């Protein structure tokens, strides 16, 4: 027993440190840690595959900082997290969940391609 607990702890630690490494390699889902109690499985999103398919080269509009006078997104730094500006709780501006939903669904609707209904992204 006394040996098992440290062994388990070590394993957990290793796993925890490995996670960001995975993320950097290839984003597979939008698991934003800002959502402390998510109600659905994280949305499936393969960053590179998505952009290749959708033929997107720019980082805007997804990665943006604020909007200009005409309401267009200003290019942003991909190193920033969405949650740095968009809060989970309602405050000023678009709340985080709505920001994600609008960003994906509005574009998919406009392009008539890509998932638009809940279960298409939040796959069980």
């Amino acid at each position, binding site marked *: 027993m006394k040996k098992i607990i440290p062994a388990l702890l070590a394993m957990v630690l290793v796993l925890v440190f490995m996670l960001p490494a995975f993320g950097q390699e290839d984003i597979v889902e939008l698991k934003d840690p800002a959502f402390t109690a998510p109600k659905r499985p994280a949305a499936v999103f393969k960053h590179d595959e998505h952009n290749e398919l959708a033929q997107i080269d720019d980082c805007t509009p997804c990665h943006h900082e604020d909007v200009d006078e005409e309401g267009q997104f200003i290019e942003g730094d991909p190193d920033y997290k969405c949650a740095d500006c968009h809060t989970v709780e309602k405050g000023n501006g678009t709340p985080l969940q709505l920001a994600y939903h609008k960003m994906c669904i509005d574009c998919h609707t406009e392009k008539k*391609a890509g998932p638009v*209904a809940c279960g298409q992204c939040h796959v069980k």
Partner: protein
Amino acid sequence: MFNEIYELVTGPLAWIGWGIFLLGSVYKLASLWSLAKKKDTSSIYYTKAKFGLRSIAQWSLPFGTLGWRETPSVTVVTFVFHICLILVPIFLSAHVILWEEWFGVSIPALPNHVADVMTLLVIAGGTFFAWRRFSVPEVAFVTSGHDWFVLGVVVAPFLTGFLAYHQIFNYEVMIVLHVITGIAWLALIPFTRLSHMLVSWYSRAYIGSEFQGVRHCKDW
């Protein structure tokens, strides 16, 4: 392909459905009211808010009336069925997100597992009613195709919604079916027995007033 269909059913079709529901309800109530003013003036005359509200309040209590007490199983199922039927479509978290995204209104949402149970209760209630229509002689005798149709229409969005949420069978097919049956549910309210949702308030208030006001007797 899916995107086009989804856009169609959540766009134009939904607008048409809501339009039929809202305008149809207004039309239904207005036409009944004008008919009542022509033909049922005495019924209007005797209807009083005080008695009507008293009657509605009493009938809103499970087991609060003789009728509710006589068939307890139906009473329990009817109350649970209707409460869930009304609350789930409005406060389901997925719908709450849509209210926000489409109309910018934000309302609190039911926790998912609660909504899930409530959906199952609606389906179970519907199954119970279907069983009655088959097996209970006084219900079977008066049941017609219309009643089956209405029951089917009402339960269908809950069944498809449940299957879609749990991603059982093909999700894309299920979600489209869910939206279509949900819209049918709404659009059929003014034109079928489901119109009891709109007018039973008045028929209850009227008979309550006849009893309490004219007949000096409670109607429960």
